């Protein structure tokens, strides 16, 4: 990727006695679509508000092009925001909403009109100039909010759960459009969501947060396939998470057996946790299996079956296209690369 645009250094934020950010370190690059992903209350919005300038960090730095900006007021930053509930100005029509920033800069009226028109075209709202924003649908308001922010040609666009209020179908479509717009305008998007699917489909980089801390930074594929800890594994998709020990490089022990794996770099006999994704497990005959158990429950999920297999020590979740009737004795099998070894976490 290209140049670093924003750097967050050791950012903390306290509200009263509560510490909501506990040392955030993050580099954000030009043209990057970066997503902050995490459960509600983990500090995503707060991080975004610090970048936008609505909050000052309690400690740490925010660098923009290498310059510390954490004390700069929002109206002096080359950053614009799309708010969670849009925050459109109800007393202004669509065109005046979009032109708000340009009007403040006293840009020439004819230039404004042109830019507004171009923006409306980009977000697919041609001819909506004179509409009352309070009478638009959620999706349309969303588009106006995006146009209102992008017309100012910011270096960075911040989006705080912009699709949260939309219904599922429009959401999917907007995800696609947002990604398209980002590629079209070629600027950095910092996107906040608690929806892991949304994060994985749209982002170049996903930042998983929990409890005011970053858990993992990586591409969607890395995050999915190589979760660094139980929290990430759990948050990104459904998983079987098993405690075990790393016997040595490429050899892990859990559920009383030793298995080959592709992980290394842990200490010998270090306590670790292992992730086995349900779709990586196969149901095989007991004699060919690495583990054996009894089918407890089978549910049809559309494309696949979700099968719960009870072994001596736990229940494994398996996703497969093959049917297995409950009560049958089955074996479970997986490849060495399907075993993801993670550092053991303290309190989860």
């Amino acid at each position: 990727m290209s140049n670093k645009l924003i750097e967050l250094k050791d950012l903390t934020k306290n509200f009263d006695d509560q510490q909501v950010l506990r040392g955030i370190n993050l580099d954000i690059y030009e043209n990057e679509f970066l997503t902050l992903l995490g459960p509600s209350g983990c500090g995503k919005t707060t991080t975004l508000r610090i970048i936008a300038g609505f909050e000052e960090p309690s400690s740490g730095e925010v660098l923009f092009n290498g310059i510390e900006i954490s004390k700069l007021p929002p109206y002096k930053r080359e950053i614009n925001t799309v708010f969670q509930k849009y925050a459109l100005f109800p007393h202004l029509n669509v065109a005046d909403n979009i032109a708000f920033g340009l009007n403040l800069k006293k840009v020439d009226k004819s230039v404004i009109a042109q830019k507004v028109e171009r923006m409306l075209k980009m977000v697919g709202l041609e001819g909506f100039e004179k509409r009352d924003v309070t009478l638009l649908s959620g999706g349309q308001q969303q588009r106006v909010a995006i146009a209102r922010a992008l017309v100012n040609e910011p270096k960075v666009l911040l989006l705080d759960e912009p699709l949260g209020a939309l219904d599922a179908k429009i959401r999917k479509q907007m995800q696609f459009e947002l990604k398209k717009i980002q590629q079209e305008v070629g600027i950095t998007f910092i996107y906040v969501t608690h929806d892991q699917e949304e994060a994985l489909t749209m982002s170049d980089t996903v930042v998983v947060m929990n409890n005011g801390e970053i858990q993992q930074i990586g591409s969607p594929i890395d995050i999915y396939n190589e979760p660094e800890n139980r929290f990430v594994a759990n948050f990104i998709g459904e998983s079987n998470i098993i405690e075990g020990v790393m016997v040595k490089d490429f050899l892990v022990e859990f559920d009383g057996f030793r298995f080959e794996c592709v992980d290394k770099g842990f200490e010998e006999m270090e306590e670790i946790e292992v992730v086995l994704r349900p779709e990586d497990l196969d149901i095989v005959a007991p004699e060919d299996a690495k583990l054996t158990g009894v089918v407890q429950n089978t549910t049809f999920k559309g494309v696949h079956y979700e099968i719960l297999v009870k072994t001596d020590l736990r229940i494994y979740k398996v996703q497969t296209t093959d049917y297995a009737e409950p009560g049958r004795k089955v074996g479970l099998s997986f490849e060495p690369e399907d075993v993801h070894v993670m550092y053991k976490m303290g309190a989860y």
Partner: protein
Amino acid sequence: MKKKSFFSRFYVVLCLAFFYLPILVTMIFSFNSSKSLTRMTGVSLRWYSELINNVEVARAVYVSLSIAILATVISTVLGTITAIGLSSHRKIVKDIVLNVNNIPILNPEIVTAIGLMLLFSSAGFRKGYLTMLLAHIAFCTPYVITSVYPKVRSLDPNLANAAMDLGATPFEALTKVIVPMIKEGVFAGALLAFTMSFDDFVISYFVTGNGVKNISIVVYNMTKRINPTINALSTIVIVVIIVVLVSVNVFLPKLEKRTDHIHPRVRRGVTIFLVAALCLGLIRCGSISSQNHVLKVYNAGEYIDLSLLDKFQEEYNCTVVYETFESNEMMYTKLASGESYDVLIPSDYMIERLIKEDYLQPLDWDLIPNASGLMEEVMDKSYDPGNKYSCPYFWGSVGILYDRNIVDQADLSEGWELLKDPKYKGDLYMYDSERDSFMIALKALGYSMNTVNEDEIREAYEWLVEQRDTMDPIYAGDDIMDNMISGNKAIAVVYSGDASYTISENPDMDYFTPNQGTNIWYDAMVMTRDCSETDLAHAFINFMIDPESAIANTEEIGYTSTVKSAYDAMLDGTYAEISSYLVDDSDPRNEIFGYQDPKIKQKYAELWTKVKAQ
């Protein structure tokens, strides 16, 4: 269903009538050709022309309007900013501030008024235009906050952020986003503030001084005497308010869409207007103090021929700041709060109290040469033996006003017992004053009206209760005069001066003082201890008892003069037929009210409340 809708319509009509009938009556009577407030005798614009020629009213209109406009603008700005600022505070702060904010709204006005008065006094403010303006801002702001705050709270808290995010400074965010969105609330608050300020009486009355009066104060001072110019003034005020409200309702919807595009010239016009109003206001209160000699006189309402003040000012090249009070007690409160006056004109018992409490300084009678013309009968009374402090102004008795066509002359010998004569049941007014009513009962029973004997007081109480139960009297105040002029009832307890006035308007009426004795009262001019313009104060007192002034004064007011030549002239002239003008103080059973111990006063007050409570 039909029945129900008839009743609900009837109910609405009833409500409207209840609200608007009094206003309608006021408006109709403002066109009355005679003085009566109860009987329409013809249509004329007499009271309007009198109003237009009344300089005091013109000044008051100016004061009311300019204060209302300034107070509205300032309190609207303050209140709006407070409401917006408040919304971003924590809940506990909000709750506290909002509750504190409600106190002045829920508080009885009189408490706020006295509080502000004491504040201004203790802070050493010169009372007048500025103190009134400050007080109005103070009591209007909470109303603005309460009407703006809910609007602010209903805003998306991110709106201001969104504006700043798009490059607006906090001030731009406020003016371009927040204010346009809460403008209905701001407007409602401003309207409320304007109406509260424009018709405020209680607070204005207490915080003003140095002769600055608004319309309400002027109206209030007028109500003591029948004065239909009040109706004319009220009608004009009502019309103004209706015009404002209607135009607001007609123009607001248009304004709504176009506030962003108010023409700059209009804006500039409004600004210039406001600044001009403020300057004029300040100049006005400054102009009084620029004069060399200022005499502050505090008198009961409608108790002087105002042209005498002009004459005095001209003659002595000075300014008289003239203020009026409604009762001796109110005067005392103002004095005790630290308000300073030079000359007061209170009643006998109050003078006794002021002397006791060291509020007065002795008069130098050498500086009052006209004193030689004072009647002997009014001098050297118990409230101020030797007239060390006081120079009598008016005097009189309390007696019974009756309709000669209804009341039998022979019954007058019953004296106060006439008030218990079943022949006149339901046909009489009592004066709603504890001291005068107990005076009547005590005199009827043959006791002193200054008694502190509990048994006698109890007996008097029983006399009043019995009278109440057998006679159905109406306990009334200043409206007695008007009703008696209209001949609405046959008998009323009145002051002799009011009787003279009534008789001059309705010759069917006559007056007598009961033979069991009555209250002889004196109102006198005194000089306060704080008075620094003592020469001018003496000159004023001397001027008021000058034979020429005294005649003008007694002719205008109708009360009995203390100046021999004026007294005689009236009895020889216009008031020859009016028995009440002549004060007969020869009866040894007549008395003067003395200073009352607070405990005894309390006792009387309690019993009087019980009498009236039925």
